[in-house]
C-alpha cells in the first residue's frame, strides 16, 4: 500500500524544497506582525495565487471549510458571551476577520509545501541540512513509521470488526474502555514492536557509528528558486507598506 505523500507534477514541485520551507517558515513569523486588513488581504490573495496552480482544490476546500467552521464557532461563542455580558458581545467590524485571514494565509502556504514535496524530498532536506544523528534519526523514523502505522491501524480496525462485528464512533463514546483495549493498546504494541525492528535495522545499517550523513540525491537550485526569493522580497515590501504603521 502506498501511503506516501507524492509530489505532484506542478511548477512548485520543481522549486527546491528548502526554498519552499524557507518561504513558509519566514511568513509564519512575518504574518504575526501584520495587522492591517489591506495588507492581510493582499497576503492572502498572493498565497492563493501561490497554491492555486497546483490544482489541489479538494485539499484547499477542506482547509477553508475548517476556517469557516472556526469562524462560525467564533460568532456563536461571541453571541453567547454577549448574552452573558454586554461588553463581550459580537463585534461587527472587520477586525473579527483578521485572525481568519492569517490562518487562511498559513493554510495556503502549508498546502503548497506539503503537497508539492514528497517524503523523499523532505528526508533529503534533513540530510542536506546536516542535522546531527540525535535529530536526524528520530525524524527520519517518523517518515518511515507513519505509512506502515496507518496500514496497521486499518488492520487493527478490520480485526476488531471480525472480533466484535462493528466498530464506530458510538463504540468509542459508549465504551471508552473497550475502545482503549481494542484499538489503542494494539496500536501502542505495534508501535513499540516497529520501534524495535527499526532500531535493529538501523544498527545493522551502521547508524550507531555515525553523526552525519551524505545526501546522495541533492536537489539542484535553479532560476525558479531565485525568482521565488525576488517575489518573496516584493511581497514583503508591498505588505509592509500596506501595513501602514510598518512592521
Amino acid at each position, binding site marked *: 500500500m502506498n501511503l506516501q505523500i507524492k509530489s505532484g507534477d506542478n511548477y512548485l514541485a520543481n522549486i527546491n524544497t528548502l526554498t*519552499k*520551507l524557507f*518561504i*513558509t*517558515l519566514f511568513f*509564519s*513569523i512575518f504574518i*504575526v506582525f501584520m495587522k492591517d486588513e489591506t495588507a492581510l488581504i493582499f497576503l492572502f490573495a498572493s498565497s492563493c495565487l501561490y497554491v492555486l496552480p497546483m490544482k489541489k482544490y479538494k485539499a484547499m476546500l477542506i482547509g477553508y471549510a475548517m476556517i469557516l*467552521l472556526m469562524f462560525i*464557532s*467564533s460568532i456563536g*461563542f461571541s453571541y453567547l*458571551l454577549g448574552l452573558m455580558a454586554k461588553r*463581550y458581545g459580537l*463585534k461587527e467590524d472587520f*477586525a473579527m476577520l*483578521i*485572525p481568519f485571514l*492569517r*490562518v487562511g494565509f*498559513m493554510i495556503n*502556504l*502549508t498546502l503548497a*509545501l506539503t503537497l508539492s514535496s514528497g517524503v523523499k524530498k*523532505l528526508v533529503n*532536506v534533513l540530510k542536506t541540512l546536516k542535522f546531527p*544523528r*540525535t*535529530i536526524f*534519526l*528520530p*525524524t*527520519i*523514523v*517518523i517518515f518511515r*513509521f*507513519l505509512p506502515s*502505522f*496507518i496500514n496497521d*491501524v486499518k488492520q487493527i480496525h478490520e480485526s476488531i470488526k471480525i472480533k466484535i462485528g462493528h466498530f464506530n*464512533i458510538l463504540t*468509542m*463514546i459508549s465504551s471508552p474502555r473497550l475502545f*482503549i483495549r481494542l484499538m*489503542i*493498546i494494539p*496500536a*501502542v*504494541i505495534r*508501535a*513499540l514492536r*516497529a*520501534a*524495535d525492528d*527499526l*532500531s535493529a535495522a*538501523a544498527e545493522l545499517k551502521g547508524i*550507531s*557509528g555515525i*553523526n552525519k550523513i551524505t545526501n546522495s540525491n541533492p536537489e539542484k537550485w535553479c532560476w525558479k528558486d531565485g525568482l521565488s526569493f525576488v517575489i518573496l522580497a516584493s511581497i514583503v515590501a508591498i505588505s509592509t507598506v500596506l501595513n501602514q504603521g510598518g512592521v
Partner: protein
Amino acid sequence: MNKEKFYWETRELVVIGTFAALIKIVSFLVAITGGGMNPIAMVAKNIVSTALLIILVFNVRKFGVLSLYVLISGMITILTMGRGLMLLPGILIAGFICDLIIKFCGGYKSSFAIIAGVALFDIFYRAISLSLGYLFMRENPQLLYFAGITVAIGYIGCIIGLFTGNIFAKELKHAGIIKE
C-alpha cells in the same frame, strides 16, 4: 574502527521518533473519529496523547527525553507544514524544565516523578500555545476565550491520560514489552 559513544542509543532515538509520530497520528485519528471540535473528542484526544507520552517516558527513562521528544515533534511540524517555529523555543524550554523536575523529584525510575513531569509539561505546553494563539487572534479576543475554554476542557483529558498512561505502562510491563 569507529567506537564513538553517544549519549542517546539508537533504540532510544527510534522510540522517540516512533512516539512523536504515534502521538500525532493517534490524536488526529481520535479527534477525527470523535467528530472534531467537540468536548468529548477533545477530552478523548488528550487522554490518548498524554497516556502515550507517559508510555514514552516509561520506555526511555533518560534525562532529556521530554526535551528531545518536543524537539523532534516540533521539527516534523516545521518540515511538513512549515509552522511551529515560534512555538518551538518555548516548548523546548518547557520540556527541559519538566525533565529537570522528573530528575529532581525522584528520577526516571519513579512513576510519581514521571507523572508529575508530564502533567506539568502539559500545562506549560498549553499555556505557551495559548500565548502564541493570542498573537494570531489578538484582534478578536472572543476567539481567545473560546480557545481558552477549549484548552481547559482538553486538560481534563490530560489529567485522565496521566492515569490511563500509568495503567497502560503496567500492562505493557506485564506483557514484557516494557522492561522494568
